[in-house]
């Protein structure tokens, strides 16, 4: 059993174990097992980074075993520079989320923890699958735990949100399934992603495949105009659900573009890049403006996620190395930052039970330690230099300017808008005099919350100050991808 398999199955095995453990009177035991499971799950991903050969675009840690022989489906895993960091990010965020749900969740604790652990394994599976069916199975299976997480532990309108989440994302991915099956028959009976990438395809086929894949990935990212599910879902999901959703699940879509859309249908990707850039810029500018007027903190961060992910897709479709690497760095940074932002909102929500910006004011007076963390994450969200948020945005803007000055200019406005909506929210919630009794009675974060936010703060600062480990890993794979995409696959 290789490291990738361990990374996938460790959390899943612990999750199933928790399901078997059962009742709520064993909650303390359940929490500790969940924590051990998530930490073990994170530890087994570390050798992936340690043993990763830099400078190689090859798939590494490859595992391959026949799975469904009748359709030539293989249990085929591997990571390259594009996917490696997401495996680590997923395992890391899972640890944080388990800590975040420690006291907050009192009902069906074992199912809550199990759902997150299983979800973690499945998402790592998505990032490391090299077989179409395997990818699809992991990709779709993530819907089940997330649906339950939103529906069982969510807010007042949770049922609407759970259905919207499930059906919206299922709509997209079903078309992808047809595209996969089509690729299978066109390739003479192979579900191997690398075979698909190498296979010539006519222009029509490429366009159809591109849009079938687009349906799944654009919904997941989410790109404008199919982003409407995200704010609704974020608002209703429990804090941990929001954090995982923003930090990792959105990345599944963006990752899909890089792993499937661009290499399998490069000509179509070039042909439709104008559309993609247009949609991305709308997400960056228009959705940024929408974020500005939100009254609900979670909604605001949700729209900010859409805007940030717009940056990512913009980077991908300008076809230069700054753009793609920048997009990838932005994805990881956004994973840390958005996760942290949602956890901060969760900290406030647990105490006051309101997400409205207007319910707060002057939080800094009662929660100074917490405010310090929140400020750091807010700054990272607006892309302040020396935080994680800066690196990716800067690279994408540089890449965009290289591609076309006006696109670069449009992208750069995001920095202004991002600063505007984040800081304005920050000012209203944290600064000023104490607004009401709820805020007056706030208690500062306890050791558990401190630990969780500190871990994220270290990640955000570390990535901002020294992004080299991230870009080094990606470099060879991104170059390889660009070279591949530059070649026409028309026959």
């Amino acid at each position, binding site marked *: 059993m290789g490291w990738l398999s361990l990374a996938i199955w460790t959390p899943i095995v612990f999750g199933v174990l928790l*399901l078997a453990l*059962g009742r709520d009177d064993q909650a303390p035991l359940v929490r500790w097992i969940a924590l051990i499971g998530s930490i073990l799950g994170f530890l087994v991903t570390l050798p992936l980074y340690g043993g990763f050969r830099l400078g190689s675009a090859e798939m590494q840690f490859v595992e391959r075993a*026949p*799975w*469904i*022989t*009748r*359709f030539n489906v293989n249990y085929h895993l591997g990571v390259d520079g594009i996917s490696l960091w997401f495996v680590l990010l997923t395992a890391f965020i899972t640890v944080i989320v388990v800590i975040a749900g420690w006291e907050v969740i009192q009902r*069906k604790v074992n*199912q809550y923890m199990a759902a997150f652990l299983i979800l973690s394994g499945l998402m790592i599976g998505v990032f490391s699958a090299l077989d179409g*069916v395997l990818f*699809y*199975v*992991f990709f*779709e*299976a993530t*819907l*089940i735990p997330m*649906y*339950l997480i939103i*529906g*069982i532990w969510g807010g007042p309108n*949770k*049922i609407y949100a*759970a*259905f919207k989440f*499930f*059906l919206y994302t*299922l*709509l997209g991915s*079903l*078309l992808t*399934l*047809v595209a996969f*099956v*089509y690729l*299978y*028959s066109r390739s003479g009976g192979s579900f191997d992603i690398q075979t698909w990438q190498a296979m010539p395809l006519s222009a029509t086929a490429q366009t159809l495949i591109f849009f079938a894949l687009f349906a799944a990935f654009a919904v997941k990212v989410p790109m404008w105009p199919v982003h409407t599910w995200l704010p609704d879902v974020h608002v209703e999901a429990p804090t941990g659900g929001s954090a995982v959703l923003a930090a990792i699940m959105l990345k599944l879509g963006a990752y899909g573009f890089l792993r499937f859309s661009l290499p399998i249908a490069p000509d179509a990707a070039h042909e439709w890049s104008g559309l993609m850039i247009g949609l991305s810029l709308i997400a960056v500018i228009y959705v940024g403006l929408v974020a500005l007027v939100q009254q609900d903190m979670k909604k605001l961060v949700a729209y900010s996620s859409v805007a940030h992910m717009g940056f990512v897709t913009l980077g991908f479709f300008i076809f230069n190395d700054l753009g793609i690497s920048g997009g990838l760095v932005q994805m990881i940074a956004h994973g840390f930052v958005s996760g942290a932002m949602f956890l901060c909102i969760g900290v406030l929500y647990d105490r006051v039970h309101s997400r409205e910006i207007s319910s707060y004011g002057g939080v800094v007076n009662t929660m100074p330690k917490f405010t310090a963390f929140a400020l750091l994450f807010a700054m990272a969200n607006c892309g302040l230099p020396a935080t994680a948020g800066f690196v990716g945005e800067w690279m994408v803007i540089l890449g965009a300017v290289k591609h076309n000055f006006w696109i670069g200019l449009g992208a750069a406005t995001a920095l202004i808008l991002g600063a505007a909506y984040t800081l304005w929210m920050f000012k209203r919630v944290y600064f000023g005099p104490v607004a009401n009794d709820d805020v007056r009675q706030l208690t500062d974060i306890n050791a558990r919350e401190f630990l969780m936010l500190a871990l994220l703060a270290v990640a955000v600062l570390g990535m901002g100050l020294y992004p080299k480990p991230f870009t080094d890993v990606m470099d060879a794979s991104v170059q390889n991808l660009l070279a591949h995409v530059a070649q026409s696959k028309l026959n």
Partner: protein
Amino acid sequence: MIDKFSWIAVYPEIVLLVMACVIALVDLLDRGGRRTAAYVLSVLTLAAVAALTAMYARDGRTVYGFGGMVVSDPMANWLKCFAAIATLVTLVYGRPYVRDRGMLRGGEWFVLSLLALLGTFVMISGSNFLVLYLGLELLTLASYALVALRRDHAVSLEASMKYFVLGAMASGFLLYGLSMIYGATGTLDLAGVVKAVGSGQIKHQVLVFGLVFVVSGLAFKFGVVPFHMWIPDVYQGAPTAVTLMIGAAPKLAAFAMSIRLLVEGLLPLAVDWQQMLAVLAVASLLIGNLAAIAQTNLKRMLAYSTIAQMGFVLLGLLSGVVDGNVAPAANAYSSAMFYVISYVLTTLASFGIILLLSREGFESEEIADLAGLNQRSPLYAGIMAVCLFSLAGIPPLVGFQAKLSVLQALVSTGQPLLIGLAVFAVMMSLVGAFYYLRVVKVMYFDAPVEQVGPIVAPLDVRAVLSLNGLLVLVLGILPGALMTLCANAIVKMLAT
């Protein structure tokens, strides 16, 4: 002259028939209200028959008996094996249910179930128009009686009546179609029919005229639109244990009979019947899924879901022959076979849960009755959720693998029309996901409506149900063996 191979070919049927008679007699001596002797004997018989057919199937031989009237090939034997297991599981799940509802005044529940299974077996093995028809009648007559088994229950009787009238009409259709084809070809034997039709000497219109009626009869058995009217009423009206009895194993028979009639008998007419199946499939997927949304009764919702699921089976059946080329046939038919088997497996578990939640005087058939099941029993809620997600085709459950194989069969034909059908089918399964999810929502997100006692279940029910639920998951993760089994069976069937 009946040779010894003929007897070997029908051993399972003989065992079933003899045991059905024995159980009827033994039951006369049983004065207890629980009918323990009949139950134990039935379960043992079914287990023995399942083992026997599995042994035959593993042997892999194709044996014709009684001058080609019946055939015992791996496809038949595997289907029989699964049908016997399905009936066995139904008896286990249904035992507390039928006892509480006064359906055990005599041993009919067991005897009729075995006779229905015998009919199923004959349908699966028939290689002759009359034998197939005989099996069909045996199955349906036993089913009519089963539906009416609660003779003091008006809804059941109404369902039985409806089933009988419509079923008789469908049998008439089928028989009429078969007689047309018999008139044109001069033979009742499937091997003879396929030869005669393939020769091209026979007037096409006559054959197609007969074919329309044959397909209608089959469509009634599958319960696909527009021959679906009986399904919701009978599913809802019949006692739940009987619903399962007519909803599970007979689907295998319907599949086998379609293969026998359409493929073994009328393959040269594939272009014609594939078009008919396509219309039926599209209508079923559309109406089944849309109508299911509006249901509040769980059994009725599952009935409409069955209609939609059978649409998928037809999709598998209709992608076998492309432009007169039969190369994709093995792939297509084995995907349909896999689909139907996985459907039966999932149906068993989901109805098993409904049966489990029913108590004396309480049917638990409204969707709302499942409210808060997760709080009452995470295990049963988990099993039901696994089944529903499987029916919705979400990986990693067996329903997904089944949908994948059918889609693969459709798309790999390369025909734009069939690829379009595949896209339509997945869009419809999105609609399907909605109503399956709604049940999951009720189980997991809603609170229990009233204070109800703990769920009590005998050990055998709990064990079989857990195993059944687990299989839905395990076969989703490791479907290879079952897929290969289906593929080999179909290949052997096509080769002869």
